[in-house]
């Protein structure tokens, strides 16, 4: 493969530069977060006297413990709900024949490209009528709905990777459709489910518009990005280091998840490129 030494050098140089650009913004706030408030950071050096005071200040002033907990509750709720619904519905699309199949698939496909702006206003009034505004439900229920499109197509793809012969064999053995789903399709699709779960977790965790509109009034339910946004907005006069520390706190869970699951996530993002 080594056609040419300079090509190789240029290629690697591009990758290194790209990586630096990708990491630099986060690295700069990371360094800022560890810089004592009394110092003026340049943005290009590792803090000489690293401190945790900014993190402590952000944690106590911003209530990020609660916000991170809320984010976790919402994300887990959305992930669980979407996966259960998608796993079941995807099975019908992958293995059954029924009238209107193509039509229904097309109908679900719309959800892949529907912008949230198109539904957020009625959603707000509807949830208000139901008395669910500013509760976890206001975030969980709609985001399950917006996730099932991706989920159903994702699971359908996964099931289609299961050899039809297995379904035939299960049915010869007297298994019902549902039993074949539980005992054959579901276990074989676990890797796909895990990737889907990771992706949905990430999307839900980072979602901004829905919490902004639907739970802005209740600090107990605000998700981490929303709390961070309010914090950064409210404390404009405060030190940039504290805001940077808050941003690091909010990014941390996702980064940890990413470090452990990055292969799965990248595969997922690339494979699920229809909707991210």
């Amino acid at each position: 493969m080594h056609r040419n030494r300079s090509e190789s050098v240029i290629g690697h140089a591009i990758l290194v530069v790209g990586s630096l650009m990708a990491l630099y913004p986060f690295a700069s706030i990371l360094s800022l977060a560890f810089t004592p408030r009394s110092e003026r950071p340049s943005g290009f050096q590792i803090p000489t006297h690293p401190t945790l005071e900014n993190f402590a200040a952000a944690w106590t002033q911003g209530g990020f413990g609660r916000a991170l907990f809320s984010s976790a509750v919402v994300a887990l709720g959305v992930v669980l709900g979407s996966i259960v619904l998608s796993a079941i519905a995807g099975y019908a699309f992958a293995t059954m024949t029924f009238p209107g199949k193509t039509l229904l698939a097309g109908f679900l496909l719309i959800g892949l490209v529907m912008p949230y702006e198109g539904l957020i206003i009625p959603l707000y009034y509807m949830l208000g009528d139901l008395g669910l505004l500013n509760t976890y439900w206001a975030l969980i229920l709609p985001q399950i709905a917006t996730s099932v499109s991706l989920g159903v197509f994702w699971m359908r793809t996964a099931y289609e990777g299961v050899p039809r012969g297995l379904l035939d064999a299960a049915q010869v053995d007297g298994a019902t459709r549902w039993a074949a789903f539980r005992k054959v399709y579901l276990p074989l699709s676990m890797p796909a489910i895990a990737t889907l779960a990771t992706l949905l977790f990430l999307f839900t965790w980072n979602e901004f518009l829905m919490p902004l509109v639907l739970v802005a009034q209740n600090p107990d339910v605000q998700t981490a990005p929303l709390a961070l946004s309010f914090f950064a907005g409210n404390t404009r006069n405060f030190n940039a280091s504290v805001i940077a520390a808050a941003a690091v706190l909010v990014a941390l869970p996702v980064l940890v998840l990413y470090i452990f699951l990055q292969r799965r996530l990248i595969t997922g993002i690339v494979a699920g490129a229809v909707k991210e």
Partner: protein
Amino acid sequence: MTEARGALPPRPVRGRNRIQWSAYLYLAPALAFYVVFMIRPVVESAWISLFEWDGITPATSVGLANYVEVLTDAKFWTAVSHAMVFILFYAALPILLALVVVGVISRITVRGLAFFRAVLFVPYILSSVVVAIAWRWVYDLNGPANTFLRAIGLDSITCAWLGDFDTALPAVGLDRHLGDVLAGVRPFRQRHPEDLHRPVRGRPTGRRRPGPGVLRGHPARPAGRAAGGAGADDHRRPAQLRHRVEHHRRRPGTSTTVPSYYVYRDAFVTREVGRASTQSVLITVLILAMVGIVMAVMRDRSGAPRQRRRNRAPEQV
């Protein structure tokens, strides 16, 4: 497990052609959620867009007047043109760049490909709020960008970068999408297409949906308020709001707004819900149309891409 089946002739095991009505039972829960929380609000948006409504008092049916108003509003078209610029930076440019880079590195053996791939995806997985805060710092008057320029003797071109539409945008776009470089070409984004310029928070308090209404309670809000939330009756919003506009949209004032910002502002800040819905319908139509175009182009180029994607197990990629 098997009942007395021995005597029976082997029946066709799987009715690939037989209709399974139970399929609808499998679909029902997912479709119920989808219809109630996704399709219904979309349809309702279209309905509300036919009214003049402040979110509280009864709504007035105005036919297509909202559409006339929005479509003849120069500000709306400016916002649309900004959105197009963003699409250029967020979609077209990264794809182009990705193709070039993939072209270069596919000719060589990359050492540590997995590492580079993981690193290049980092901006993509971070919350847009975190990314925005990071860039706000980088472009701060005393931030790294200017520090660097001063260090190399270019004091003359240091500036408040975010005050300048042209300088902030490309860098943010590049950062956010370098992850695509190794992933290859990524089709249309849907979920977070505008999260970097998502609008600001509101103070939703509305009650009723439009019905056969009579009169609207409030006159239109003063335009001045629209510019950045300088409402006098709103004690904690002004600075916060304007700030947040900047920090999510990465640029100041209204000179670079996108349509979704107006949706948010009209619906939850100035409470012209009908007008907001009109704009949300227009955005939806625009996005669906663009997706349609992209899909049509892809289909022309390469057979049926959706079909192929569906047949590929997620895990294999």
